């Protein structure tokens, strides 16, 4: 997957529209879910996804082969979310969802067997945001902790610690729920 992404980025930089379409097909599902995990709102996530791809288009000259495409694209998507959140600030667009309307958050494979998916999603909502993000980036989208550090602007070690704490919290929440 990483090699194909890298190859398509090279073709995209050379001006091939087909490469953009392929990149979109490969990256959009992951970025959409990532944005959903940040916004909790499918329609906002979809809007931000389009904006993220526009920014990816404008930043395409900053990608250098053969470095991995995913951390570069996730960093841009995260920045789109942060800018939107900042300009939306007082409009309170980013509210935690009501418990009865749990968004379709991705479920980490490690937590999948602990309870049913809805219970895991509900528990994920209770995990603090600074831990939830590295947890999902690592366990769902497969980024290394070094790459997660680059996306979040922290050290890889710090990303690992946050993800570990979040996983512990998730296990505790699911354990408490089952009891």
């Amino acid at each position: 997957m990483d090699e194909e992404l890298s190859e398509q980025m090279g073709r995209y930089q050379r001006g091939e529209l087909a490469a953009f379409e392929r990149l979109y097909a490969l990256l959009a599902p992951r970025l959409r879910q990532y944005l959903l995990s940040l916004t909790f709102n499918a329609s906002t996530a979809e809007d931000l996804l389009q904006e993220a791809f526009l920014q990816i288009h404008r930043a395409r000259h900053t990608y250098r082969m053969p470095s991995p495409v995913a951390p570069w694209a996730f960093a841009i998507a995260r920045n789109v979310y942060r800018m939107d959140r900042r300009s939306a600030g007082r409009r309170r667009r980013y509210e935690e969802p009501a418990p009865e309307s749990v968004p379709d958050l991705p479920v980490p494979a490690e937590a999948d067997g602990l309870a049913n998916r809805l219970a895991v999603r509900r528990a994920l909502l209770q995990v603090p945001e600074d831990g939830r993000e590295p947890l999902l980036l690592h366990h769902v989208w497969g980024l290394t902790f070094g790459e997660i550090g680059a996306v979040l602007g922290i050290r890889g070690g710090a990303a690992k610690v946050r993800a570990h704490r979040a996983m512990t919290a998730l296990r505790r929440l699911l354990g408490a729920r089952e009891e």
Partner: protein
Amino acid sequence: MKKMNDASFDKLKAEVARDLKPVRPLPPAWVRALVLFPYAAAGFLLLALRFGPYWETSPLVWAAGAFQILVAYGILWVGLREAVPGEGPGAPALGFAALTATAAICGTNALLAWLRPVPGPPGLGGFSFYCFRVALLLGLPAVAFGFWLAVRGFPLRPAVAGVLGGLSAGVAAAGVWSLWCPYNKLAHLASHIGPTVPLALAGLFAGSLWARGRRARQARRRSP
């Protein structure tokens, strides 16, 4: 939802197709930061034209100047890394780099003042507004140029890139100007390094404006 996704993808594709010219990948930050050396050389020539060939001949002063330019190069390198998504250093690394650079510059100047003591000009404890102004004027074009280099990439934190560009310009300007200024009193050297603060603030201001503009454009595109 699928129909909505298809419609937004078509719109996005049309927008991308309108501006799909081939692009050349940006060279690595360490290569782009090399521009600081010709800039320092140009600053040297400018000062030679303005003040004549009365530069310092002491190898110690030249070593201190060269060291400061190397530190400035390191800061610019970090600033230009900031211009590539996913390559920007984290907050602890930035703090560590800033502290190391400050310690290196202060240490070099203190060592210079101790090894080769030349009294400063009278008044203000040796501080000179003239030197402050010259170093500031030398650094201002460097801030603009460094910021332009940064936004040629895609800085996710333009304000951070701007501050780093300003710091780098200030340190390089101090390094070059110290080759002409004969005074080595520690308080006087503060008037060489002092302009680093307004230069970093200028970079911060330019970066914040840039970020605000980008945020406003994004908000406009997203508004119905």
